[in-house]
């Protein structure tokens, strides 16, 4: 099939960007979306033009590197699918595809479709862990965890940190990302001692980074390639109120 691509090109964060049009010819339905872009890039290079920059690495939907707005939808039209796992059979001959980077104040553009998501790392730094040093851990079976708690923790822990939730949210809120980590650790006994300071710290960091607030549009869970439920935001809000009421602080 042949497709027309309109792609956001921006040489660097300091430059202004604009949409450029490219033809993608002889696209196989079995190609992934990124393989289609690889082929376009090969042609751009051989015709003396600059290839389109985009983040990608594992190409099996787990590293969270890739992500772009495809026709205005984070990671494109297929549910529960990261961009690298989206295949061209989802499109048809003659389609026009609009490709843009994640757009959020807290994710500044670096180049073309590449954005800076280091804000996510800084949110984790404010408490997205269990403070245990290496060594001295008790036997794994000394900490019993019921199957449903373990499963709920795993559901939330499946987050790949791609940023689609932020990109899909009209407020550019990172609540789904943050709520996922809070829910993962909050469902486990190991996460209890730091539960209050974790939620206070991580929520505060979201504000510092310039992410918006959650106003329950629910777009995040629709865009999430790992289908993380908006319930994790409920959990985060619950924990935040409880922690605030207990007067805990992040010191």
């Amino acid at each position, binding site marked *: 099939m042949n497709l027309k691509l309109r792609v956001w090109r921006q040489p660097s964060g300091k430059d202004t960007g604009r949409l450029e049009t490219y033809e993608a010819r002889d696209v196989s339905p079995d190609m992934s979306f990124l393989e289609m872009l690889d*082929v376009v890039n090969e042609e751009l290079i051989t015709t003396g033009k600059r290839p389109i920059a985009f983040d990608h690495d594992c*190409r099996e939907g787990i*590293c969270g590197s890739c992500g772009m707005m495809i026709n205005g939808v984070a990671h494109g039209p297929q549910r529960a699918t990261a961009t690298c796992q989206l*295949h061209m059979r989802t499109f048809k001959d003659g389609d026009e595809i609009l490709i843009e980077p994640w757009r959020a104040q807290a994710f500044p553009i670096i180049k073309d479709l590449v954005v800076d998501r280091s804000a996510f790392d800084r949110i984790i730094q404010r408490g997205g*862990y269990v403070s245990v040093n290496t060594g001295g851990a008790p036997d794994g079976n000394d900490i019993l965890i019921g199957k449903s708690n373990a499963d709920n923790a795993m559901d939330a822990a499946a987050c790949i940190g791609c940023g689609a939730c932020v990109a899909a949210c009209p407020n550019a809120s990172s609540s789904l990302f943050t709520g996922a980590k809070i829910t993962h650790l909050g469902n486990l006994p190991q996460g209890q001692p730091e539960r209050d300071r974790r939620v206070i710290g991580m929520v505060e960091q979201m504000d510092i980074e310039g992410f918006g607030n959650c106003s329950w549009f629910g777009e995040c869970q629709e865009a999430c390639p790992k289908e993380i439920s908006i319930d994790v935001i409920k959990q985060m809000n619950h924990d935040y109120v409880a922690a605030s009421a207990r007067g805990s602080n992040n010191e």
Partner: protein
Amino acid sequence: MELNSKVPPGPLTEKWDQHKFDIKLVNPANKRKYSVIVVGSGLAGASAAATLSELGYRIKCFCFQDSPRRAHSIAAQGGINAAKNYQNDGDSVFRLFYDTLKGGDFRSREANSYRLAQLSVNIIDQCVAQGVPFAREYGGHLANRSFGGAQVSRTFYARGQTGQQLLLGAYQALEKQIAKGLVTMYPRTEMLDLVMIDGRARGIVVRNLITGKIESHAADAVVLATGGYSNVFYLSTNARGSNATAIWRAYKRGAAFANPCYTQIHPTCIPVSGDYQSKLTLMSESLRNDGRVWVPKAKGDKRPPNEIPPAERDYYLERKYPAFGNLGPRDITSRAAKEVCDEGRGVGESGRGVYLDFADAIKRLGADTISERYGNLFEMYERITAENPYTVPMRIYPAPHYTMGGLWVDYNLMTTVPGLYALGEANFSDHGANRLGASALMQGLADGYFVIPYTIGDYLARGGINSVNTDMPEFKNTEREIAERTSRLLSIDGKRTVDSIHRELGHIMWDYCGMSRNDAGLHKALELIPQLREEFWTDVNVPGSDVELNQALEKAGRVSDFLELGELMVRDALNRTESCGAHFREESQTPDGEALRDDEHFAYVAAWEYAGADKTPILNKEPLEFESIHLSTRNYK
């Protein structure tokens, strides 16, 4: 070159404890005086950086990805082995050690493999304490499953995302230390060279991938945890960015490269579908717990799988290896798939595929149970192939996956360069000629959490490490060499893209140095690779400049190193005329086609020493001595 493995004396079971007592310690107050560079932030790198910083060392950690959480350890699916014997099925440290040694076809260093099995139990405890959500039974206890090459159930897992959860555990430990200001993290930064001063590793030269700026970093020791080199095959299960540049540059600065020809071809990957293909996707080995592998008995049988009656199917693994059935080790299972496809019995459009069928398991256990165990893998398969594995058998084929070879290290994980360490897949030490499933995660975390934190202290405490800074000529000269190399890449302005050359290299490696190798093919590769390298340096087209984010330039640097490493792999494969584990020389096989070792001539580690550009590298040998076990012929029948 002298290869001193520094394996401690004494009984196998006591070596590590005795060694920990014998090696020197750095006083807690003195640790902050020492700085360590860690390159790579996967399981080995992140766990090492976090743990060393917890001990008090000043740490700088580097990764080329935009966040340490994206390192390719994240893609490991099936699980992590540990000799906990929670299942009461006869497991023990010694059994895990023996399985590892046997799985590796007796080509690993006994003492290292034993230590790995010993430390496996600590890893699970550590990860549980961090909040890694391992699968649990209803009673709250940790669950296990089986993996290839073992007859006990010792694999711990977090659905099909075990690597992700273990990496996030290590990543979170690392972020905890970054938040305290004890680790400085450099994401989107790629190591391009190692800097040596007075014969010791004293720092690295890196490129900031956003600005293009070349920078130097000095330290008292350098730890490489940069993963493997399967991408030399172009198509592999590795991430697109996975590369060998750090270890290759270390090799060219004097670190011996061990057993480069030991490359693992994983039996269960989604087959290639077209020329544009950019990577191969693994389907976890754990699927072989419940899936049955078969091909039609008749050549060229093009009927849809569901129309082929059971009597006309060849469940060849169960037929050939009744004791292990579908759960044989990877090398043997991969070769068996190649064999039936070579016979013309492969399935799918290309004929390079075999079925992995869940129909019997679904009948026995119900679709719900299968979905609980493998749901995410089935979904991934369907997204890629548009076929539903609940109703149509999966099609799978072997693909390059893991490299057992890597930088030679001693028992302390130090390379032949003083002060330079290699951890995880980047070193060679624990898996011999073939790695068992669920053992890569185990080794990465053992090295990072529990080995290097002890052994690096011994080096630092012995003293003699002078103070250095990045204004010294050794740093400036290396920076200049890197800048010259970069401008050379950008100025060739030829006709071929980096990817097209990389793909061609991949074909050469796959055809002549892949699942089976022979003398004529290897000689052919030895002709073709230098020609392709010449073509790269005269006709490659790298667009853009060196002062911006330039992904084509990044790729060009990595491929230029693969073009050299590929040749070393071929040389090593030529030298080793025996078959062992994943290295199958067609000239050396038993009458029924199994790998035939030659212990008399090849019970050694081949450690290659760089001799200069365009010079044949020097082969050094570390003899492998086995004190606790008898060398036997592997038998999975």
